[in-house]
């Protein structure tokens, strides 16, 4: 594909600094006003192995990764051998002079001439790349200065001179790569962050002040971003002894008035299920981020999948309401996590952010989040009027009982994981049981009414409707663009909230399309089954991906081709 966007892939072993190069270049492109979609592919090891950092960038919105490579920066031979075949017609290989290269346009970088020591090779590669795509040198200079500021002016100078030398060197070379089209002048301020960072920010904006977690890729980076940025807001964080402790700690904190988050992946979440059930019974708000990776069991630890929808939907014994959000991109990660906090508080229920490795690690350039547009976090009842007569689980019409926080007044806050009376004490009175269960379920009706409707893109009554959820959105939208101008009139229906589903919001779209195709990252079509369960609508065309890689438009188009065959 030769569009206005280009795909730059940096390949090498873990530990070679490809993330540093990729990260800095992405930030430079963002500051210059370009759009980016970053896809990180890495193996489950700290050093060695084959890893790539792919930046798809251009002046217009880009939404998904692609397999075609316009610039391949090979830090090792394996990157050349594995990816040279993906080069486009205008493709260029950037490699050191020690690698064996195929017959293709290339820039042989004399690293030893440009950089005094291998330590500086990253900065040299950055200079070469920035120059090849005609990024403004001053932006790169500023980023390098910021990166080394803490190490003192000498280190900054040394790195800047390598950067400039590498940048200038490319200018003298003959290479076929044309500059990128200019970025829109009115792009406005941009920030660059990945899905998990955006989730962390959304949490802080939602008033999150407590984090407990047990590390598990790709959920960990939400916790790390929160710990880093939460310093400023006084966040209390603890790495728990296991996931069971993490979720129970969050619930203890929530009971005492915290706005708590836990972040994990499917395997860790499996251990949290009893805690989810406890949240349902005690009616405590907690936001749980489940960053999906392929299973069963330990699966492919560093790859992507969308197969934990069922786990999250049904996690926890017994029946109780919950909300499950599935962000489609980095902005969604922010706004939906904020929404998860808001709903968890208002409905005193667990709320989930179901994301995946691809989105977790995918950097995008976005407009800074509009903090003023966000609703205020709901207030706690610190001093309930009824004083000692306060009843934690008062039966109400909408199922939501006023929630007091212990220790602030004479009111006692009594919560029991056994079925309980309105004042929170264990009961085996079976009529109270029924009344309490009904009260809890009534909160679910409110959640249905407030469900975020799926987004619809494209013409009414299309020939083809692609249905997807979560991070598949970008690839589906690109498929739509690629189908433009063909005979097929296509549309996309994207679910950013996958539970509860409100059929009234989307059933007409399904019924009016001539043909409906579900695109999801698992091997059984979990959302398709859920839609059928909730609405009776059968989607029998499925394009499923479960090899650990994110969807691309090419994959979907190929899937459509074989459905036709």
């Amino acid at each position, binding site marked *: 594909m030769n569009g206005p966007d280009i795909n730059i892939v940096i390949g090498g072993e873990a530990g070679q600094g490809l993330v540093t190069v990729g990260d800095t270049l992405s930030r430079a492109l963002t500051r210059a006003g370009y759009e980016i979609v970053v896809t990180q592919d890495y193996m489950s090891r700290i050093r060695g192995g084959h890893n790539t950092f792919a930046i798809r960038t251009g002046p217009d919105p880009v939404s998904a990764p692609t397999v075609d490579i316009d610039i391949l920066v090979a830090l090792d031979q394996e990157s050349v051998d594995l990816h040279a075949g993906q080069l486009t017609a205008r493709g260029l290989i950037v490699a050191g002079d020690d690698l064996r290269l195929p017959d293709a346009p290339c820039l042989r970088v004399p690293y030893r001439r440009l950089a005094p020591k291998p330590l500086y090779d990253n900065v040299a590669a950055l200079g070469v790349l920035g120059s090849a795509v005609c990024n403004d040198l001053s932006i790169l200079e500023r980023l390098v200065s910021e990166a080394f500021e803490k190490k003192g002016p000498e280190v900054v100078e040394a790195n800047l001179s390598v950067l400039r030398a590498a940048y200038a060197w490319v200018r003298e070379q003959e290479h076929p790569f044309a500059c990128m089209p200019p970025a829109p002048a009115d792009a406005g301020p941009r920030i660059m962050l990945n899905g998990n960072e955006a989730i962390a920010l959304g949490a802080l904006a939602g008033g999150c*002040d407590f984090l407990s977690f047990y590390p598990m890729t790709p959920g960990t980076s939400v916790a790390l971003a929160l710990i880093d*940025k939460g310093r400023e807001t*006084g966040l209390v964080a603890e790495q728990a002894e296991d996931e069971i402790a993490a979720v*129970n700690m969050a619930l203890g904190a929530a009971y005492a008035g915290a706005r708590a988050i836990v972040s994990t992946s499917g395997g860790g979440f499996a251990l949290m299920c009893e805690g989810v059930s406890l949240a349902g019974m005690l009616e405590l708000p907690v936001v749980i981020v489940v960053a999906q990776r392929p299973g069963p069991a330990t699966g492919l630890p560093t790859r992507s999948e969308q197969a934990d929808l069922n786990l999250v939907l049904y996690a926890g014994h017994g029946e109780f309401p919950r909300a499950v959000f599935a962000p489609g991109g980095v902005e969604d990660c922010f706004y939906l996590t904020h929404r998860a906090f808001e709903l968890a508080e208002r409905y005193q229920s667990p709320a989930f952010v179901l994301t995946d490795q691809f989105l977790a690690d995918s950097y995008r350039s976005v407009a800074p989040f509009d903090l003023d547009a966000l609703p205020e976090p709901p207030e*706690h009842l610190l001093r309930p009027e009824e004083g000692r007569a306060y009843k934690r689980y008062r039966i109400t019409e909408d199922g939501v009982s006023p929630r007091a926080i212990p*220790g602030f007044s004479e009111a006692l806050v009594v*919560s029991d994981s056994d079925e309980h009376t309105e004042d929170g004490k*264990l009961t085996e009175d079976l009529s109270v049981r029924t009344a309490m269960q009904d009260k809890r379920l009534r909160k679910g009706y409110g959640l249905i009414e407030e469900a975020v409707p799926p987004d619809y893109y494209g013409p009414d009554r299309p020939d083809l409707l692609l249905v997807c959820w979560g991070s598949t959105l970008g690839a589906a939208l690109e498929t739509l663009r690629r189908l433009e101008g063909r005979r097929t009139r296509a549309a996309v229906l994207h679910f950013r909230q996958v539970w509860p589903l409100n059929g009234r919001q989307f059933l007409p779209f399904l019924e009016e399309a001539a043909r409906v195709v579900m695109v999801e990252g698992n091997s059984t079509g979990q959302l398709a089954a859920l839609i059928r369960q909730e609405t009776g609508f059968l989607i029998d065309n499925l394009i499923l991906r479960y090899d650990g890689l994110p969807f691309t438009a090419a994959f979907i188009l190929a899937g459509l081709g074989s459905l036709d065959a």
Partner: protein
Amino acid sequence: MVGMEDYGQFETAWCPGCGNHAILKAVKKALAGLGLAPHEVLLVTGIGQAAKAPLYMNCNMFTGLHGRSLPAATGARLANPGLTVIAESGDGCSYGEGGNHFLAALRRNVNITLLAHDNQVYGLTKGQASPTTMQGMKTKAQPFGQPSLAFNPVAVAAAMRAGFVARGFSGEIEHLAGLIQEAVRHPGFALVDILQPCVSFNKLNTFSWYKERVYRLGPEHDPTDFAQAMSKAQEFGERIPIGVIARNDRPPFEAGVPGLARGPLAARSLDRDALRRIVESYA
């Protein structure tokens, strides 16, 4: 003035003669003696006969899941350091299902107190062996005698240099109430392992069995001396010491959490300026 009556009187579902009755009394006595009003106290429990104790008194209560009282207590205490947080549960709950949390609590040293009702058996599920069941004891589930060695919570806690490690006996209410008060006052994690007969299921460690063996540690025992503490912690057989077994003033977890200086989480409001700076840091 706070009195025991502020903590109320309730009918219980425990067997007559069970040690839980005495422990409940000691807890109320200790809290009233500390001048703590019911709303200043949070009891966090797991599941079991022992875990029902807070149901029979007035106070804030979080009855969670079997084995999970310590993580929940930790979360609550970190969310509001103004609360007096006590985790209370059985030996099965605290050392079996919750064993990993017990170890973590010893290391973490958050200012909470664990009152473990140690009847050396699972009461609520009708008498199976618990982690503290003595080796060889026969039960319906262990008809050939419990093959595993009994867990020694006091020795493990002392070995981990827990700040406050005590053993109490339900047959000595005054003494036990005193231990509970000291434990609550201790600024860090405090364990009181409480020997308690289960009249229905533990026919070995009966009230008279304990009565014959239990003795109070005197002033000659120096709980701050690690070697002495370890030696007393190991004593469990013909003679069983009760009292403060080990003690030290390791700084509590809270001292290393700067965020806590801003007061209870529930009373905070959103810092929009900080948020704005954080968003801008991604430019």
